[in-house]
């Protein structure tokens, strides 16, 4: 058995809106290159994604919507129809071949699922996936099809397994949450910057699910300008409590890398420290609760030069027991990309200590986050028997 597989082919880069769009899948290639030049990945571990079938997309998506994307893909969808489906906007512009590019991205996550669930691999990483804003019948927030929602439904149907979905993107994982809002066999946990100002605006503590699914949806919205320590405390505590409560068969983590101080679209103040710890805890808990079964996908991440490649590489390094890699980044990786990069590339795996000026109100932010965490976990903490 391959311990871990990395789902990738250059075709994934065809999910491309336009040259100015902040969602840029070139980051997949930059990340893989960093891993290769760090001698952290073998050719045999790289598996090409398959194309998702139409009926697989329709596990989550409205067939009319899939049809609309197919038409848009060939330039046959009218502006009016497009607007009804959230297509042709600044966020999700129409581009030729968008259906195929999006279906491949979903298929990549399904490939990852099959490797892990059939026991061909212990862990699988598909950084091309994690498009958590896609809705049943509507594109939203750079996402056309929601690979994670489709994958969870696919796992339920094919493998009858209980899935814990943990989302550490800076934006709330709304699409996945709403897909399983009334389902008690799927548990979702999202840790994100508060939706007070940030897209999509949801992800409040009181969004706990409905009907049978009430109590299976968890949200930990942290304050703008939250730093490493406070963020990691919220992540560690909530993850441990929720997994102990739900006891899943398999773990699916969404690894948006946009909570970093450098990220242009969000307002958190995290550094590379959280991206070392995120996969470490996921890995540990996957072995403790799920017999190792862990599927990791990508997500947001808009500083594709200084943040995303290092952050996503950390997931792979952790999966392969190479998390002790540190210090100097491979010089040939820097040389390979520095011409293209509009910003100075980092020289080391870690961020310097003085990455940003001190945040005023740090104490208040930390205290607020602590309170949010307590409230978010209250239902499962309160049912625990006292010792």
């Amino acid at each position, binding site marked *: 058995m391959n311990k871990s597989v990395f789902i990738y082919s250059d075709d994934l880069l065809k999910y491309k809106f336009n040259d100015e769009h902040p969602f840029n899948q070139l980051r997949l290639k930059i990340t893989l290159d960093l891993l290769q030049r760090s001698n952290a990945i073998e050719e045999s571990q790289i598996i090409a994604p398959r194309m998702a079938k139409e009926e697989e997309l329709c596990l989550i998506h409205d067939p009319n919507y899939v049809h609309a994307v197919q038409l848009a893909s060939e330039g046959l969808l009218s502006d009016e129809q497009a607007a009804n489906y959230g297509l042709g906007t*600044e*966020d999700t512009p129409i581009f030729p071949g968008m259906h195929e590019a999006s279906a491949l991205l979903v298929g990549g996550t399904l490939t990852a699922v099959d490797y892990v669930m059939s026991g061909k691999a212990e862990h699988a990483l598909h950084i091309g996936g994690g498009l958590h804003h896609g809705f049943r019948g509507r594109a939203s927030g*750079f996402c056309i099809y929601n690979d994670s929602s489709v994958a969870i439904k696919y796992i339920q149907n094919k493998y009858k397994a209980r899935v814990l979905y943990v989302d550490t993107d800076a934006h709330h994982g709304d699409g996945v949450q709403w897909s399983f809002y009334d389902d008690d066999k799927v548990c979702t946990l999202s840790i994100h910057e508060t939706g*007070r100002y940030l897209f*999509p605006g949801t992800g409040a503590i009181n969004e706990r699910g409905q009907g049978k699914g009430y109590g299976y949806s968890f949200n930990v919205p942290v304050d703008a300008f939250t730093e490493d320590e406070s963020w990691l405390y919220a992540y560690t505590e909530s993850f441990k409590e929720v997994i102990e409560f739900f006891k899943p068969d398999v773990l699916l983590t969404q690894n948006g890398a946009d909570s970093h101080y450098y990220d242009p679209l969000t307002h958190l103040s995290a550094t590379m420290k959280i991206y070392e710890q995120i996969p470490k805890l996921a890995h540990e808990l996957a072995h403790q609760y799920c017999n190792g079964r862990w599927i990791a996908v990508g997500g947001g991440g808009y500083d594709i030069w200084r943040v995303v490649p290092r952050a996503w590489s950390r997931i792979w390094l952790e999966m392969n027991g190479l998390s002790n890699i540190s210090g100097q980044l491979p010089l040939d990786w820097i040389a390979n990309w520095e011409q293209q990069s509009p910003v100075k590339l980092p020289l080391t795996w870690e961020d310097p200590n003085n990455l940003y000026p001190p945040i*005023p109100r740090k104490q208040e932010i930390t205290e607020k986050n602590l309170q949010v965490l307590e409230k978010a976990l209250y239902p499962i903490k309160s049912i625990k028997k006292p010792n």
Partner: protein
Amino acid sequence: MIVEEIMSKNVVTLQPEDTIQKSIEVMRDFNIRHIPIVDQNHLLVGLISTQDIRSATPSIFHATDPLEDFQKPISTIMKTNVITGHPLDFVDEIAFTFYTHKIGCVPILKEKKLVGILSETDLLHTFVKLTGAHKPGSQIQVKAPNKPGILSDITSIFKTKNALILSILMYPDIQDENFNVIVIKVQTMNPLSIVTELRNNDFEVLWPKTPGSLS
């Protein structure tokens, strides 16, 4: 917006002869805090709230035999001077009624017959909808001088960026009465180009802010 559009039309009611016990059960089963009391012709004769029931309940320190009190008819404890509204009332006016009378609900009458009820929760729900909080979007806050045409100047920037506005809220700046704060919820995950354009046009953008500008 008028009351008719936001009131609950399926109203749970009781009659004055029903027991207090029954009103307690109904409130529990339907998870409500107020029950309008009507006669056979559906004319409003009173209102009973959790508060009225609490007043009729003996103290927990003297709870020897309270149950027989609950068998008395509702008419013995219901409020009869009820503040009511009409389906065509304006929502903002009725909101003011809630505020001045410190009440939790307003029964809505048409030709003296009960046709609906409006609770604080309904009002809050409407407010949430008005602010666009239930649709995916980013929020931008702008401080702008209080002068004619300013809103048009601002929204035209959104138009050039092809950005769909979900809601706009404008209120006077507390610190400076010559300025308004304008809160715009826009359907995009990437408000950066709009923000840049607003700043280029000398608007003060209060949010999103960068850590550098935080004080």
